[in-house]
């Protein structure tokens, strides 16, 4: 929790048990030209991996590891926090009934991978400045959170 941003106050102090969260990333420093160039090259490599395997939509703020490695940004509403209320019987999408709701598939896979608890996180509001930048670079530069690739095993 970044305290000085709230002048010492934490935004979710009402209940103690709530996970403290920063809802939106604040505007960070603009990328320098060299950084942009590196980000662009990194994006090329990233796309080679992410587009064929995860059908990545290049939002730059990757939450693939939270959503059981299915890109949630394929949803026509680009929801980041779970499905809308319109999912049809058998998990069809409300907007394009011929498709499956991505969140339905995410749920199924997350249950299989035992990653359901990651779906209970409240994802941050998307920072549109990061659109079409390399998420890997953003992780390295601490603009976004690192992915949770490995789960701790319970002993």
């Amino acid at each position, binding site marked *: 929790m970044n305290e000085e941003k*709230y002048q010492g106050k934490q935004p979710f102090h009402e209940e103690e048990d709530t996970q403290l969260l920063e809802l939106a990333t604040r505007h960070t420093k603009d990328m320098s030209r060299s950084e942009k160039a590196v980000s662009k090259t990194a994006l090329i490599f990233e796309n080679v991996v992410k587009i064929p395997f995860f059908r990545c939509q290049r939002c730059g703020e990757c939450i693939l590891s939270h959503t059981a490695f299915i890109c949630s940004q394929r949803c026509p509403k680009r929801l980041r926090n*779970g*499905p809308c209320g319109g999912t049809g019987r058998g998990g069809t999408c409300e907007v394009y009934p011929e498709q499956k709701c991505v969140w339905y598939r995410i749920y199924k896979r997350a249950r299989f991978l035992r990653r359901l608890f990651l779906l209970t996180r*409240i994802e941050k509001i998307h920072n549109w400045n990061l659109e079409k930048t390399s998420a890997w670079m953003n992780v390295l530069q601490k603009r976004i959170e690192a992915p949770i690739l490995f789960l701790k095993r319970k002993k």
Partner: protein
Amino acid sequence: MSLSQKIDTGGFLFTAELGPPKSCNPDAVRKKSVHFKNIVDGVNITDNQTAIVRLSSIAAAKILVDEGLEPVVQMTCRDRNRLALQSDLIGMSALGIENVLCLTGDHQRFGNHPEAKNVFDLDSIQLIATARMLRMGFFLSGEQMKRPPSLCIGGAANPFADPLEFRVLRLAKKIKAGAQFIQTQPVFDLDRFKTWMNRVREEGLDKKVAVLAGVMPVKSVRALTYMEDQVPGIFIPRELISRMKKAENPKEEGVKIAVETILCLKEVKGLRGIHLMPLMWESITPRIAEESGLLRKDSAAGRNTLSGKAKKTS
């Protein structure tokens, strides 16, 4: 007593829904509001429902405030980005409206402007959290404001969409984000609703939030099939359609079904209220309230308007 106080003090809540007109006629809103006066605890004002342009929900809510009712403004993420959402939330509070129902919103593909650009900058959960942040006096940018708005924040839930487990998880998320009350999609399939409610109780969520079950009285078979085809996320059991088909007087049958549903729902443990959605049939509210025993004992005024109504119709 305001809605938020009623939520805190307990007791069975009764809210209803009002669709603003497709024109700038304030009298149309006032006329519909007569049916709710002294009967309901809150009146939801839909926000461009099914993506069809209507009178703004905040404007209609202001009319209701002037009429002495307690509106609940529905706010969708389809039409506004984070700037507009925040300014509307503060603006609403400045007008004396404090209840807001945060929704994702139907896709514009179903409405009368399918060519529009949607926004979906936030989703419903993030909007709930945003409203809560504003209430604490912070904008999303982290800036502090001098006079924070007072808001009572609600969310929606669909107990009927698949998979059931995910729906409960999402409800938990909404509570975590700060929802104080939850209104569900209309209940036609009681069994499914009960299984959902069981899961909600198992997770202990009914203690943290006031869950209001939606009930929709329908006039005809056509209305039922229209709902099923056109409104996403609503499922209607076959038996109900055949029951409506067989009925001699579909309107009466519709009221009967609604009353039966409410009576069954009142038995469900953990449920805190009923949310009536009389789609374009607001005038039926007093009758359903009376027949299902939802009229408040203390409101003599409610009964007066009722008997006045009955005389007129007879």
